């Protein structure tokens, strides 16, 4: 099969499809966290990439300093980094509530630079290795291709966490508080619900999602201070395409764009790094609020 002058083989197609799904898993987790945070706080959280990186470093430190393995890290690192997020919200973001969102955008951007700079200062730009856990090493032979077990796990874990988050937000009482709080926080407070605490926990949860993605990424990419900055530009493009604040939209767009990127690598490799941004430009022209966005 030849397309755009490239010879395409089936194994190559499957391989890129898989890489696309894996990238999509990270896009989905990260853009979901951004959407959750934006929905409740109307904050564009530019520190998201930094929290993702810190999640991966969390896993690294837990192993190196405390001897806690991958499975512990998967739980503890999001909790710890989520707590850092809660602190950031209480100390800084809370004071910007009611101001133009541009201020919180600049603040989180500054925080991202500081976090990333600190890690770069102590650990350099090159990465630290993090081994794939024993239980997830090896590969399945699917007949038409080999699927590394860890990569399959990443896709499944991301889908489960994304779907679980969606379920909680759309179908539970807690989610009803969140949705109501997004719409009219004052009224929700007038029912006796502590909305300021809910806001802090929502930010912490969005940050924890980023850290969870960071732990998942640690064995695939190396643990590097720059890993957040590398992925976050694409994630923001994904969020713009999906529409800010739409939970399901951010999940679907994340996975779909990962796959689109992977397929572009097969059919027209030259465009693989830009295809997401081209789609973003087209979506902005046709539907400025994003594919799933509500027009404000």
């Amino acid at each position: 099969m030849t397309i755009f002058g490239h010879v395409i083989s089936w194994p190559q197609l499957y391989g890129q499809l898989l890489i696309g799904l894996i990238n999509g898993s990270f896009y989905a987790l990260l853009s979901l966290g951004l959407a959750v945070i934006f929905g409740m706080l109307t904050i564009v959280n530019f520190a998201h990439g930094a929290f993702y990186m810190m999640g991966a470093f969390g896993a690294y430190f837990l192993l190196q300093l405390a001897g806690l393995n991958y499975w512990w890290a998967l739980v503890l690192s999001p909790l710890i980094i989520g707590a850092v997020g809660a602190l950031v919200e209480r100390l800084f973001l809370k004071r910007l509530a009611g101001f133009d969102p541009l201020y919180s955008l600049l603040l989180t951007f500054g925080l991202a630079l500081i976090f990333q700079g600190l890690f770069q200062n102590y650990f350099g730009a090159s990465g630290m290795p993090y081994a794939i856990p024993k239980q997830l090493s090896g590969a399945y032979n699917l007949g038409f291709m080999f699927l590394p077990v860890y990569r399959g796990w990443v896709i499944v874990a991301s889908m489960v966490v994304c779907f679980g988050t969606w379920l909680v937000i759309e179908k539970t009482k807690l989610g009803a508080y969140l949705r109501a709080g997004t719409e009219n926080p004052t009224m929700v407070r007038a029912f006796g619900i502590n909305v300021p605490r809910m806001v802090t926990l929502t930010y912490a949860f969005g940050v924890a999602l980023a850290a969870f993605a960071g732990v998942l990424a640690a064995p695939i990419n190396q643990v590097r201070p720059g890993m957040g900055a590398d992925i976050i530009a694409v994630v923001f493009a994904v969020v713009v395409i999906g529409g800010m604040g739409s939970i399901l939209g951010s999940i679907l767009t994340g996975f779909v764009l990962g796959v689109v990127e992977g397929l572009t690598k097969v059919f027209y490799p030259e465009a693989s790094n830009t295809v997401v941004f081209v789609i973003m430009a087209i979506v902005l022209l046709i539907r400025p609020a994003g594919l799933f966005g509500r027009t404000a």
Partner: protein
Amino acid sequence: MADAALASRPAPSSAAVLRVKGLQAWYNESHILHGVDLDVREGEVVTLLGRNGAGKTTTLKAIMGIVGKRTGSVMFRDCELVGLSIERIARLGVALCPEERAVFASLTVKENLFLPPQIAKVGGMTVQQIYALFPNLRERLTSGGGKLSGGEQQMLAIARILRTGARFLMLDEPTEGLAPVIIQQIGRTIAELKREGFTILLVEQNFRFASTLADRFFVMEHGRIIDAFSNAELAGKMDMLHEALGV
């Protein structure tokens, strides 16, 4: 006119549920309330009358704590509300049904109805009582909150604060923009709530509607109370009201 007969019945007890003294309130830089004094006794329906912009809605919001800044005193039973957060005030048993109804569009009717948490173990209406009061709501439980008519929204906004155990209700213009038949239903509902022993502070432009329900009236102008009288004195106040309310 059974409702009118009910309204003229003396309040069951004279203990003050709410006592507001010298309440001033600001939104940002605008000074809206300039010293409001009023009281509401146990089991009473008290109506705040006044023109648009007189400060009626702001008075309710200031009691609830939903203003930028407030001074003066708001005693709810034995508790000073000035200085407390909105959610603390709500937890004490003060409930607000706002003018804009604030039904959540992204929630179903059922989710809206069950959103406010129980704040007291006793005193709340059961779901069956609420459905008996508002039969339409039961049929629309799975609809989105944004899909309701104005009347249904108003019923939902009242219904959801009846479950919680709050016994002091502040209703802000519950009849605004509704058809006469719906207004009658809202009127019957408020009369029923009064029979159930709820204490109600009502803001109403429509004083003919209010006159069938209220035990006492307060008239507001420019952020102050300018007159107070009982339902029995209403007839003698008509000229003043026409003047003050411009109706």
